[in-house]
């Protein structure tokens, strides 16, 4: 990546940070129907990951914690915000919500309310890319907790067996809700597991910009070129609660949580970029995020007729045929 690319990554990651903070504020103001799982701490990793991808040829599936991924793949921020806020004009007119962001047009196939549920779907996107010869790859992003789900293991094995171009991504923030990854994940490490499944696998520090660049570029290229699956485990801190507003009583106060965005800023400045330049980008990112979320807040909620379209379409009892 060029120095300019990296500055854009900085701004984009800060945009996601600011977006999440705006969503948090909107939630506090009662504007959000449900609980939101913010990606605070993973913005840099997600931006770097998606910078390697080329939607809609490439398709990403994500977990319950996917606001950042949808944005990083280029989904329209106002539409994403509107979906999270349950507004008409949301990606899916507010029918899906925070855990169900879909922007397949941009290469973000879907996020998911079921821990691990998105992973087999990515194998499907990979199968399409392979069968249709698009040159695309699929990326299944999940948490450390999800990496213990049966469907996830099955998909890793399936991807090796069928030789599918899927990149499995574990965002290891150390927690599945309140449970430590060290407790929940038996064995040596997710990487050792992945290798035993036959996947090429690497681990990366989600705050180490050079490591991110190197590792993600290499693995994405490897999956694309060989058509074979790989896995990357990224350590990212969970800077907030499991969901916004969670008390986190189970967490000890003096746990260190270095912020990847701060580490990146230090790095940029060490590389000779000006602090003022960084600041300007952060301010711009914040303003844009605020604008998108504010515009979304101003949108109306969907009319109940939105639902009626679906209850008619899906009605089990029909006079006349369906197809």
């Amino acid at each position, binding site marked *: 990546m060029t120095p300019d690319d990296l500055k854009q990554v900085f701004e984009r990651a800060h945009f996601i940070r600011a977006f999440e903070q705006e969503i948090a504020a909107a939630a506090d103001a009662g504007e*959000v*129907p*449900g*609980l939101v799982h913010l990606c605070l701490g993973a913005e840099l990793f997600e931006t770097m990951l998606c910078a390697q991808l080329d939607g809609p040829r490439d398709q990403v599936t994500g977990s319950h914690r996917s606001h950042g991924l949808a944005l990083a793949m280029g989904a329209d921020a106002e539409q994403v915000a509107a979906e999270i806020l*349950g*507004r*008409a004009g*949301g990606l899916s*007119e*507010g*029918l*899906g*919500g*925070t*855990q*169900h962001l879909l922007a397949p047009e941009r290469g973000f196939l879907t996020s*998911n*309310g*079921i*821990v*691990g*549920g998105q992973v087999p779907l990515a194998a499907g996107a990979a199968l399409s890319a392979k069968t249709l010869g698009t040159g695309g790859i699929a990326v299944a992003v999940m948490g450390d*907790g*999800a990496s*213990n*789900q*049966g*469907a996830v293991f099955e998909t890793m094995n399936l991807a090796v067996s069928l030789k599918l171009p899927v990149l499995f991504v574990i965002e290891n923030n150390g927690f*599945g*809700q*309140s*449970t*430590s*990854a*060290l*407790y*929940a*994940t*038996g064995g040596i490490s997710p990487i050792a597991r992945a290798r035993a499944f036959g996947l090429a696998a690497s681990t990366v520090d989600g705050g180490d910009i050079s490591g991110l660049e190197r590792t993600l570029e290499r693995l994405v290229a490897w999956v694309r070129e060989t058509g074979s699956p790989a896995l990357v485990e990224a350590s990212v801190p969970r800077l907030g609660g499991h969901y916004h507003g969670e008390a*986190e*009583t*189970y*967490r*000890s*106060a*003096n*746990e260190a949580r270095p912020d990847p965005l701060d580490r990146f800023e230090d790095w940029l400045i060490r590389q000779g970029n000006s602090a003022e330049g960084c600041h300007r980008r952060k301010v711009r990112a914040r303003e844009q995020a605020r604008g998108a979320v504010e515009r979304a807040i101003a949108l109306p*909620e*969907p*009319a*109940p007729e*939105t*639902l*009626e379209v*679906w*209850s008619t379409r*899906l*009605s*089990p*009892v029909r006079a006349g045929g369906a197809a």
Partner: protein
Amino acid sequence: MREMSIRDALNEALFDLMAADPTVVVIGEDIAGGAGLAGGSELGGVFGVTRGLAAEFGKGRVIDTPISEAAFVGMATGAAMTGLKPVVELMFCDFLGVAFDQIMNQAAKARFLSGGRLKLPMVIRTTMGAGDGSGAMHSQSLHGLLLQVPGLYIACPSTPADAAGLLKAALMADEPVVMFEHKGLYGRTGPVQDKLPPVPLGKGRLVHEGDSITIVATGAMVPAAEAAATSLTAEGVLVDLIDPRTIVPLDIELITDSLRKTGRLLVVDEGTAFGGFADALVSTICRHDFCLLKVAPVTLTPPHTPVPYARTCEGAWVPHTAGIVAAALELMEA
């Protein structure tokens, strides 16, 4: 009589059960909480129902699990076959899907397949219900799905006394029980007897007495229907409101006794509009007690779609008191 919430009644019932019987274990995600961490304090379950249990009974009997529902539901099933009485928490019933084989083929069939030699004293506690903006995969009401799985009992409590009592009775049964706790009712308070006595499985409860119309409601539809019954009384429509409490086994006698008075049946259920509990009940009555019905029976359920997220749509999706009143009035005119 004390007043307490459903959340607290369940918590106390769990304390009672664990104190009385060392073979009772509790299994689930984050039910003690903070597993593998030092320095923090207990979580006690995402809904707080299991709080304090780990401190009292230890992490050997209050077992936090990785996120792998198939494995731990199956583990509980195997444990029930071999001398333990497991209470499993499945955080949301929407997650039944990932554990469905272990429930449908393993837990439900084991007694039959053993010719009755195996007993399965176990409860799967799970949550149900829309109304809190949780979206399509954290809001379903899938109690009706399990009707179609012979070998299970299914409880849907709507009061603190019933929640605690059904939980206790469930661990005394030989069949596995799945208990659906409505998220929206955890804070609902009500009177309970001192010792939280068991409530027999298969005995419904007459919530409100009247002779104009029979309303059968489950879960969060019970308080909604109670409110409707009050409004309807003001309009001269006297409601016999029945909460079956367990939908399997179903106390059909209580319902037919009521229909003998009223001849009018309205079933209000948050489950599916087609093939769910409401249809099962309507069909059962029509097939066996057709002549009790003066007019066509009516069901009030959500439309046949996934649960929508936006408040407006979710509000239109869940049956509400006003809708119950309207349906009852229409049924009275029929």
